[in-house]
C-alpha cells in the first residue's frame, strides 16, 4: 500500500524542483541584462574593440572579437565551477556520446551563427529592423519546442511568452535614422537577421533535447568553449576576409584587447555574468522546458533598466528611461507572471 504521507512529501519535493527551475529562469534573465550592460555599453566601447576611425567591417569585427572573448571567459569560469563540483571528467565522457555532440551543434547555432548574424545584421540593416527580426526567437523557440519536443504549453503561458517577446522588442526598439538608401547591403542585412532568430531558437531546442541526458552544467560548459573555438578559428578570419580587412584583422583586435588589459578584464567580468546566466538558462531549459526558459531569457530587456541605472550612478553620468522602455518593462513583467503562475504545470513537461 502506498504511504499517503510519503506521496504528499514526494509531490512537495517535485513541486520544489519545478519552482527551482523557474527561479533559475528568472536569474538567467537578470544576469543576462547585467552581462549585456557590461559587454555592450562598457567593454566593447573601449579600444581596440571600438575606435572612432573604424569603418563598418572593423566595427563588426570588434563586436565579434568581444563576443568571442566573452564566450572564452564564460567557458573558463564554467570549467572552474564544474571542477569545483567534481564534474570535470564529465566533459570528455559527454563529448564521446551523441547527445554530447548535439550540444556542440546547439553551440554552433547559438554562438557563431546566431551571434555573427546578429552583429552583422545590425550593421547592414540598421538596429531597428535587425533587432525586430532577431527578437522573435523566444516565440519561435516555443513553437519548435511544441513540435519537436512535444512540450505542453497551456494558452495562458502562450500569452505570457508572446508578451515577453513583444516587451523585449519594445524596450530594444530604436527609431530608424535616415532612409534605407544609406545602407547598400540592407536586404542582405535583413536576411542575416533571421540567423539569430533561428539560431537561438534552435540552440534552445537542440540543447534541451540533448540535456534529457546531458547534465546542463556540463552542456553549457561545452557550449561556451566550443563556441569560443569556432569564433576564434573560423568566424573571425572569415568575416575579416569578407570585409576585405585581411585574414588577421579580427585576431589583431582580439590580441590587442588582451594586451591592453582593461578591456579584456571587463570582458572577463561580463563573461562571469554571462557564464552564470547561461548556466541558469540551460538549467531552466532542462527543468522548465524551452517555451518558459525562452520567455525568462528575454526578461533581460527589463533588467537592463536597473543595471543601466546602477552603471550610470557608478560612473556619475545621467541615466534616462524612456516611456517606451517603461511600457515594455510592464508588458514583460505581466508576461513573466503569466508564465510562472502555476508551477504545478511543470510536474509533467511533455505530452
Amino acid at each position, binding site marked *: 500500500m502506498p504511504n499517503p504521507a*510519503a506521496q504528499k512529501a514526494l509531490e512537495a519535493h517535485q513541486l520544489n524542483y519545478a519552482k527551482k527551475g523557474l527561479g533559475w529562469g528568472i536569474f538567467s534573465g537578470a544576469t543576462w541584462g547585467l552581462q549585456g550592460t557590461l559587454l555592450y555599453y562598457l567593454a566593447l566601447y573601449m579600444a581596440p574593440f571600438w575606435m572612432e576611425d573604424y569603418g563598418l567591417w572593423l566595427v563588426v569585427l570588434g563586436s565579434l572579437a568581444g563576443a568571442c572573448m566573452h564566450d572564452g571567459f564564460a567557458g573558463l569560469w564554467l570549467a572552474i565551477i564544474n571542477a569545483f*563540483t567534481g*564534474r570535470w571528467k*564529465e566533459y570528455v565522457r559527454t563529448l564521446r556520446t551523441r547527445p554530447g555532440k548535439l550540444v556542440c551543434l546547439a553551440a554552433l547555432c547559438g554562438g557563431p551563427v546566431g551571434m555573427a548574424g546578429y552583429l552583422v545584421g545590425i550593421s547592414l540593416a540598421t538596429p531597428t529592423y535587425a533587432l525586430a527580426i532577431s527578437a522573435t526567437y523566444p516565440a519561435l523557440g516555443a513553437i519548435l519546442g511544441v513540435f519537436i519536443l512535444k512540450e505542453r504549453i497551456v494558452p495562458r503561458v502562450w500569452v505570457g511568452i508572446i508578451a515577453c517577446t513583444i516587451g523585449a522588442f519594445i524596450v530594444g526598439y530604436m527609431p530608424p535614422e535616415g532612409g534605407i538608401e544609406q545602407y547598400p547591403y540592407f536586404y542582405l542585412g535583413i536576411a542575416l537577421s533571421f540567423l539569430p532568430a533561428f539560431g537561438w531558437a534552435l540552440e534552445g531546442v537542440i540543447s534541451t533535447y540533448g540535456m534529457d541526458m546531458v*547534465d546542463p552544467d556540463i552542456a553549457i560548459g561545452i557550449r561556451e568553449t566550443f563556441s569560443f573555438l569556432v569564433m576564434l578559428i573560423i568566424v573571425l578570419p572569415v568575416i575579416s576576409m569578407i570585409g576585405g580587412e585581411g585574414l588577421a584583422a579580427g585576431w589583431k583586435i582580439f590580441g590587442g584587447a588582451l594586451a591592453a588589459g582593461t578591456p579584456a578584464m571587463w570582458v572577463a567580468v561580463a563573461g562571469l555574468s554571462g557564464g552564470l546566466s547561461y548556466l541558469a538558462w540551460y538549467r531552466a531549459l532542462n527543468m522548465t522546458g524551452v517555451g518558459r526558459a525562452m520567455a525568462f531569457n528575454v526578461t533581460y530587456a527589463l533588467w537592463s533598466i536597473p543595471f543601466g541605472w546602477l552603471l550610470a550612478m557608478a560612473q556619475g553620468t545621467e541615466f534616462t528611461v524612456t516611456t517606451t522602455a517603461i511600457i515594455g518593462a510592464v508588458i514583460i513583467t505581466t508576461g513573466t507572471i503569466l508564465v510562472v503562475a502555476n508551477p504545478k504545470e511543470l510536474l509533467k513537461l511533455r505530452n
Partner: protein
Amino acid sequence: MAKNLLPLRFRVLHYASQKDTFTYLDLLRDLKEEYGNDGQFNKGMMTLHLDSLRAVGMIEEADVDFDKNQELLVQYRITDYGRGRLSYLPDEWK
C-alpha cells in the same frame, strides 16, 4: 579492454534499464567502483540527476516511503521513453 565510463546521468539511465526498480542508495552502492572518485558522487548530486531524469520523463516513481530517518525514499523505474533513449548510448554500452 575496459569500457569507457559514461557521463554519470547516462549511466543512471543504463542502470535503470537493468533493474526493475531502484533508489539513490542502490546507485551509490553499485556505481561506487566506477564513479566513487568523482566529487559529484554523493547523495545530493545523485538526487538531482534522478529529479532531472524524472522531470523529462526518462524514469518515473514506482513507489515512495520514508526511511528509518523519516527521509523520503523514492523507488524509480525506467519509462518506455527512457528505454527508447538507450539507443543514444555508445555501442559498447548497448
